[in-house]
């Protein structure tokens, strides 16, 4: 799991790379808590290079969403690979997260 943090206006973008599983999800959780402490209210997670996610990774997304909601913040996802979409649907995540096809659309989606 690799994480790159970028900023676009007032949107913090976390570009994720690799697997989000039981061994790596803590890294994302720590990073999310870190950017929230810095006052981030608009968080975008880019899944372009994520090739695997399990329930531990999915839980981190829900945790991040719940934390952001406390400060009237928003979490948006983008670029989830087609073969992983069904798992997001079954988890109920397509109902609770705005999910965009491209990073550009996602950034615009905050407005």
């Amino acid at each position, binding site marked *: 799991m690799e994480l790159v943090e970028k900023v676009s206006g007032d949107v913090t973008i976390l570009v994720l790379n690799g697997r989000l*599983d*039981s*061994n790596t999800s803590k890294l994302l959780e720590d990073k999310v808590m870190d950017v929230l402490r810095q006052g981030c209210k608009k968080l975008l997670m880019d899944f372009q290079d994520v090739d*695997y996610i*399990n*329930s*531990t990774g*999915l*839980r981190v997304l*829900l*945790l991040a*969403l*719940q934390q952001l*909601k406390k400060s009237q913040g928003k979490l948006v996802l983008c670029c989830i690979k*087609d*073969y*992983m979409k*069904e*798992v997001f649907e*079954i*988890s*109920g995540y397509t109902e*609770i997260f705005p999910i965009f096809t491209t990073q550009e659309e996602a950034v615009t989606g905050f407005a």
Partner: protein
Amino acid sequence: MGDVVVFRLSNKLLELDRLAEAVEAFGERHGFPRKMIYQVRLVLDELLTNVISYGFSDNTAHEIEVEMRLVDSRLMLSIEDDAAPFDPLQAMTPDLTTAMEDRAIGGLGIHLVRKLMDSVRYERRDEKNRLFLEKTIS
């Protein structure tokens, strides 16, 4: 009958990487779509993470056996372990209708297993947990 792979792993989370490779190899050999390979990997990951994380309390090594069998387009998986008796089908499923803010963090793994497989059957026999799962590859 069909192609059968039997995979043995010890009760360590890092072993799941080896299992993931075996699933990938099995799926690719039979031309499974990418989505199927991912979902089978995920199902085994969820179930075995549970067994390895919560099933043993004696700090000794245990062997877990995973079998993958493909007959025509029918994939049959079985998991056998000597962990504490645990029927994942009796485990609570998350209430996906609960407001997102209130939703409990947990139970999602088993929910995914049930939804992604066509059938899941549990039995406890000879001091072992046995789980049988089936899915049509399409």
